[in-house]
């Protein structure tokens, strides 16, 4: 009931589009909460888009998803203890990320193990929620994101975490790429494959913790996996794919925020829907694009 009342007030005070683009853009940044949302969203999109490339390359999308869910138990546990949920989230995602990373790619049936742990930790999360007799909004924010409630301090923390994750990714870029494509080969060349796998999952844990603020635990795929998954369908050059993934993640986040500002519906819905719609249209248009490519190839051959 309380939630419904909040929704009603929000929709009543929702700004409306004026059809003047400059006025509309200016009004977007009129409120501090929108400025903070754009700042945090931008940082998170850059980090998520970049690390997403390696998540897709290493086929560890499920691990990324699991991290966020396992993190949910940590976050709710922290709330019960009266600590900021971010710390619980980070602790649990880091611990589970390092564990999954240590198991490496060699262990077959890893998905089953992760799934079992993930189901149990979600159960733990539900228990912690019931123990905490506070507002359900805290849980709601964790599950679905709460980008419109971000403070200046949150933005600063996100910025520091974002810089650290991107710097770490750059530092391990080449050996990570090598071991993601062929672990045996990279190992023979002296690349510490298992250590890299652990470091990567730790970086991913920090990135997931950041992204949870924007899209929440349940919708993490939209920012980490979807942009990169779209990017690799357009290019097979790693650097270009990473840039494209970052660009798409930024576009989804910015557009989602802008649309949500003029609508009564939640930001995460728009971000995830934009990501999904783009992915689906890219997949559906593939036969057409391939035909066009073949036709131009044939044309250039006959022209010779």
């Amino acid at each position, binding site marked *: 009931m309380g939630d419904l009342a909040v929704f009603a007030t929000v929709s009543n005070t929702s700004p409306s589009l004026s059809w003047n683009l400059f006025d509309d853009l200016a009004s977007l940044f009129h409120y501090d909460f929108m400025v903070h949302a754009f700042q945090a969203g931008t940082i998170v999109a850059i980090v998520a888009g970049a690390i997403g490339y390696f998540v897709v*390359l290493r*086929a560890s999308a499920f691990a990324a998803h699991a991290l966020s869910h396992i993190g949910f138990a940590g976050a709710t546990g922290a709330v019960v203890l009266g600590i900021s949920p971010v710390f619980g989230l980070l602790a649990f995602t880091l611990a589970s990320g390092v564990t999954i990373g240590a198991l490496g790619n060699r262990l077959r049936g890893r998905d089953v193990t992760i799934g079992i742990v993930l189901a149990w930790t979600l159960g733990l999360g539900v228990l912690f929620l019931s123990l905490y007799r506070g507002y359900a909004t805290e849980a709601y924010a964790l599950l679905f994101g709460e980008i419109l409630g971000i403070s200046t301090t949150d933005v600063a923390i996100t910025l520091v975490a974002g810089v650290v994750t991107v710097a770490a990714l*750059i*530092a*391990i*870029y*080449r*050996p990570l*790429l*090598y071991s993601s*494509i*062929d672990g*045996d*080969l*990279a*190992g*023979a*060349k*002296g*690349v510490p494959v298992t250590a890299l796998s652990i470091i990567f999952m730790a970086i991913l844990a920090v990135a997931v913790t950041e992204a949870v603020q924007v899209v929440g635990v349940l919708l993490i795929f939209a920012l980490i996996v979807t942009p990169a998954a779209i990017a*690799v*369908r357009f*290019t*097979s*050059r*790693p650097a270009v*794919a990473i840039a494209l993934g970052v660009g798409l993640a930024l576009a989804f986040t910015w557009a989602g925020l802008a649309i949500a500002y003029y609508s009564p519906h939640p930001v995460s819905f728009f971000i995830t829907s934009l990501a999904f719609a783009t992915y689906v249209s890219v997949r559906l248009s593939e036969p057409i694009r391939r035909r066009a490519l073949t036709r131009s190839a044939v044309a250039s051959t006959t022209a010779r």
Partner: protein
Amino acid sequence: MSDTAIVARDLTASYGARPVWSAGTFTIPGGSFTAVLGPNGAGKSTLIRMILGQLASAAGRLEVLGRTPRRGNPDIGYVPQGSAFDSELSIRGRDFVGLGVDGHRWGVRLAGRAKAVAATAASIEAVGALDYADRPLGSLSGGEQQRLLLAQALVGQPRLLLMDEPLSHLDVRNQGAMVQLITDVARQRLLTVLLIAHDVNPLLPHIDLVLYVANGKLAIGRPKDIITSKRLTEIYSSPVEVLTDSRGRLFVVGLEEEVSHPHG
């Protein structure tokens, strides 16, 4: 050509307490082409891992290019065993080959960019993979992927080339082309080649030596000396017959089964 590439004296391999093979004594001359043969699980890849410095010997001595084996030896080019790349793998062959230059270094490629790009292009050309080097690896055929794997093994200008079953996933025609390519490249670059294979026949016209890994032992010799009924029966410690067909192809037949199942 006259120097030795690999020397093993009483070499023993084991995984923990489980012995794989022992008392391996052999010498691989520099510039030679050796086929490593033997049944599955006999320890052929184990030998490769020891040469790569990834597995320590349980006993005995192993010298690779005049030194004890060490991980990440830049003088060794390696093509690992494995089925084809995942069909969804969206990485250009060119980027993959480039990782053979500096993929083991931290960070992103800044210095030496032009040199790495040139070395990559030269290696791709040397294996005849120019036509498809810019396509995603996952979309390529098994033969095309093997050529790019060879290109990435060669890009660091190694002296020793180790290949773990590079022919297994190829059809007969591609096997022949691949063996010819390896032979040509090895001759041009004075490479020593150690190649694990299941079937010796596509290799027979090109190899200098056969290293048999079977029954907990290693045995080395020229193909015509070692692939004989008498020698293989000794190595396997059970009756083995080598048959030759009209085109000179060899077939190794175990006789144990017929002996132990006379009513079958």
